């Protein structure tokens, strides 16, 4: 399954990049710098989606005492952290030419930074507990408490007066941007989705191998058996 998702991710990324750079027109206000949107917005979306899904798996693992769910949560966390970092870095690279500052303590930026700390906290907490089952439970609790931050990020541009602009794409309303720009963004978001699925499956496979090293099925794997 992993090669298929990797292939889809590559195809969507190529199509998305083509639309982003070759087809989408120049912004009348921001010139070419706006093209950062094509990587910034999908990365920011993924940072929030992945957190919700991770917390969902963690909660399921906690409620049903299911090991695989906890491993899925653990497998998603580093990828979520990377997308959060990317949203922050690309946002900073966009903020500098447009706002004149790499960073401002704006509600949107600050809550996204807290999201990064939540991911890092989750990873650090899990790796600091030796017993994997206890690590799963502690991590799940942290992940679930942290979910409260996701709506704060999402609505921050409405609740507070932020330097960060409001959302251009709203559910139930026509998007306030040219169709080709929207398509470019959606294609890259799809690419990131496929990438996330492929990478988290790769990681969960590693986690299973590491945790179940002594189990018979591991010993019988074709890559292991002599």
């Amino acid at each position: 399954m992993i090669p298929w998702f990797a292939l889809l991710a590559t195809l969507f990324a190529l199509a998305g990049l083509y639309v982003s750079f070759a087809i989408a027109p120049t912004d009348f206000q921001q010139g070419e710098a706006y093209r950062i949107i094509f990587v910034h917005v999908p990365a920011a979306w993924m940072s929030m989606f992945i957190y919700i899904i991770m917390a969902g798996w963690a909660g399921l693992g906690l409620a049903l005492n299911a090991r695989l769910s906890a491993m899925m949560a653990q497998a998603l966390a580093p990828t979520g952290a990377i997308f959060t970092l990317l949203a922050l870095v690309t946002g900073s690279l966009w903020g500098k030419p447009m706002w004149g500052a790499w960073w401002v303590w704006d509600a949107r930026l600050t809550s996204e930074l807290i999201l990064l700390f939540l991911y890092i906290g989750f990873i650090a907490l899990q790796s600091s507990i030796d017993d994997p089952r206890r690590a799963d439970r502690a991590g799940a609790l942290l992940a679930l408490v942290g979910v409260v931050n996701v709506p704060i990020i999402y609505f921050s541009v409405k609740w507070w007066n932020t330097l960060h602009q409001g959302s251009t794409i709203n559910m139930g309303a026509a998007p306030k941007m040219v169709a080709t720009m929207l398509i470019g963004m959606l294609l890259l978001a799809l690419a990131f989705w496929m990438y996330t699925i492929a990478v988290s499956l790769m990681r969960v496979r590693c986690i299973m191998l590491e945790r179940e090293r002594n189990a018979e099925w591991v010993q019988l794997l074709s890559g292991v058996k002599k």
Partner: protein
Amino acid sequence: MQWASWAAFFNMGGYAFYVWFSFGFTALCLALEVLSLQKRRLKALHLSRLLAQE
């Protein structure tokens, strides 16, 4: 097509540093993640193989 020449494309209307850094950094992070996972898998398989031989 939006671009008069390749030079104009790479110049990004004067915002080359910001635009290319954003996309380059993203590509770098994702590539590093995939590479580190491939290494991690090989290491896990190697350790399991050692265990299987015991």
